[in-house]
């Protein structure tokens, strides 16, 4: 943002004329924080998760704890001195995922009872070491299935029944399109992570407007990037931070790159606030219709195959700019009444060769 515009916006905001973003920290700040996710250092040890696909919860020279936000992780260590018996723990990992280290770097897997926790001991040598965490079939082109669950908010106390129901589905992981909690505080986000112990598959999420209750939002420290991209079993996923009813220009730049590299793949884009609410009079959507249409046209031209949204507490299936779209905000937040939809999650079948082959709403009622 130009200095003049930022100053004007701040002045108007402070005068109470508008609640402009200058008062609270714009989406740009969150996009910049995305760039720091997955990096940490402790004494003579540095860690960097490729593409910022995991949040570093804890790092010492004895061990590290990470929260994965993608099925496949590549972690780079740079040690100033050898660190034998370094304990690496990844929470929110794919069940069955295995650590891979370069030849000559001993790793000793540790059994855990939590299906979404991967843990190992590594004898980190001095210098750079790349460690990968992936399932053996992470590159398989076979059809598979994932779930979408968003907008839990104040229903966090009873979300476990949805997690248990999802665990009964043969899904590889669950996507979260934001509003995991009511205010996005550290305690609420930690509670959500504890509740995830009821879910037997990982939960990869972006944040929603309800995660903006603290400044800066602790989401990035606990869950990871607001905008991220990964590929898994022949399908590309882009999670975008639309929590402020807009995308930061930085995110548009990343999206352009992600669309270009995913051009030949099935590409799924998920974000919290949809560009356009099918109930236009409600405008549970981007602040600017102009920007919404710009984004939709860009995604359509960029080969996006499926768009998934939250924010509106119902289920709706529609098309935007010709792209298949689903709003699924059934995590338990105050529901839209008279829509015939209760607390629910969406199950999506994908086939890297044939595209999206199935969509099914699992409705648990009120």
């Amino acid at each position, binding site marked *: *943002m*130009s200095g*003049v*515009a930022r100053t*004007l916006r701040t002045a*108007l905001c402070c005068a109470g*004329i*508008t*609640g*402009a*973003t200058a008062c*609270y*920290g*714009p*989406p740009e700040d969150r996009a910049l924080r995305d760039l720091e996710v997955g990096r940490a250092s402790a004494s003579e040890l540095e860690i960097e998760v490729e593409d910022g696909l995991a949040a570093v919860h804890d790092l010492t020279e004895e061990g590290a704890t990470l929260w994965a936000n993608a099925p496949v992780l590549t972690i780079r260590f740079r040690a100033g001195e050898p660190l034998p018996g370094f304990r690496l723990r990844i929470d929110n990992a794919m069940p069955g995922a295995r650590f891979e280290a370069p030849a000559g770097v001993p790793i000793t897997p540790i059994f855990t009872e939590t299906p979404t926790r991967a843990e190992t001991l590594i004898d980190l040598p001095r210098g750079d070491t790349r460690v990968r965490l992936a399932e053996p079939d992470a590159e398989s082109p076979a059809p598979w299935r994932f779930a979408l669950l968003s907008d839990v908010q104040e229903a966090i106390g009873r979300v476990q029944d949805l997690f248990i129901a999802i665990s009964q589905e043969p899904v590889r992981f669950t996507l979260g399109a934001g509003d995991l909690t009511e205010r996005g505080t550290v305690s609420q986000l930690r509670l959500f992570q504890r509740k995830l112990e009821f879910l037997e598959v990982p939960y990869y999420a972006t944040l929603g*407007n309800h995660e*903006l*209750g603290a400044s800066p939002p602790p989401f990035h420290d606990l869950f990871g990037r607001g905008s991220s991209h990964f590929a898994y079993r022949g399908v590309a996923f882009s999670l975008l931070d639309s*929590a*402020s*009813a*807009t995308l*930061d*220009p930085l995110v*548009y730049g990343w999206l352009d790159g992600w669309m270009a590299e995913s051009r030949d793949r099935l590409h799924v884009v998920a974000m919290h*606030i949809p560009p*356009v*609410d*099918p*109930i*236009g*009079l*409600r*405008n*549970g*959507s*981007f*602040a*600017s*219709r*102009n*920007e919404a*249409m*710009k984004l*939709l*046209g*860009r995604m*359509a*031209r960029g080969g996006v195959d499926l768009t998934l949204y939250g924010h509106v*507490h*119902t289920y709706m299936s529609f*098309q*935007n*700019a010709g792209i298949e779209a689903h709003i699924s905000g059934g995590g338990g937040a*105050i*529901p*839209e*009444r*008279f*829509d015939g939809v209760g607390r629910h999650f969406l199950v999506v079948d994908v086939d890297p060769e044939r595209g999206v082959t199935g969509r099914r709403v699992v409705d648990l009622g009120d």
Partner: protein
Amino acid sequence: MALRSLSGAALALLVAGAPALAHAAEAPAEAPLPCLEPGTDPRLPGPLPAAAALFPGVIVHGAGHYAAGHDDTALTLLWLEGAGIASVLVNGSVLGLTGASRYFVAPAALGVIGGVGLFAITLLADIYGVTAPPCGFGRPPATIPYLEVEAGYRGIYDQQFAYRHLAVLSTTVRSGRWRVAPSGAYALNDANTRLRLETGLRVLGPLPHEPTRRGSFFEIDTAATHHDFDTEGFETTTLELTTGGRLDLDAIGPTLRGAFSEASAGVAMARTRYDGGIPSDTDLLLLARFAFGLYLGPGRGEATLFYDHRHDGYAAGSIIPGLGSGVPGHFGVNGFYYVTEAWGLGAEGMVGAATIGGISARFRQR
């Protein structure tokens, strides 16, 4: 349904002043309304009323007038503030309890906007009434122009779009009760054009060639807008229907002479066509606007502070963090002043997703 809600809330000011509004349509050509002459003004001297209008007036609207000895006006402002708060509470409860149900969201949102409008207008009216000169800062024109032309420049900053400079041109032609107003905005540094044609039917209020002493009116308006975002590869065509008007606030009390309020509401249907054979999108927008304004000079000009719920146009909706993301429209101030009978200057500033400011040259014929 939406219009019913509007008449119940957003236009409560118009309703409160309905007798004056009806009278305006039949008001004979007379000299301007008498001012409060020196010695006849019951207002207390000194800063007490102005201070009371700020506190406790920010909470208890009319406190300034009460301190100034204008009990009737004070009570009317307080009642209208109460109506505004009640409208916000009732309609906000409807939104909350129904989860912004698609079946209730439009009238409830209009009720909230109207309530906020009443709150804001009565606050500003209280401050105005105890700080403005006895005659106000001006009065409505003795006859309204049958032709107005405006040409100017707008600087704009929208971080999502490249345009920074707009040339604007508009013409308003009035004949009897009808008004036709074509206008255009052309980006000077980008391929972006917005063309708009408004037509209005004045149901109540002054007409061209008919002397008047009031500015109050009530209109039914239609508009067609075509906004071409050539750089981004899409264009939007919007058809809209609105109804609303202006109320001279001296209908509430003599101290409010020279001030007016405006309110309008309606609905728009937008169709977006994308380049590249991408399927088009069609959606609806809720339109609502309220304003507080002042006449400047003897029919020379106006200054208006307004809220516009539009999420399209150059300003679009406000980008705010947190729970209200995507919901609010934009805020602005505009005004004009005719330095001579025919020639004048205009200025405008708006803050929404974009920040806009600029000036215009104006011409009128009466």
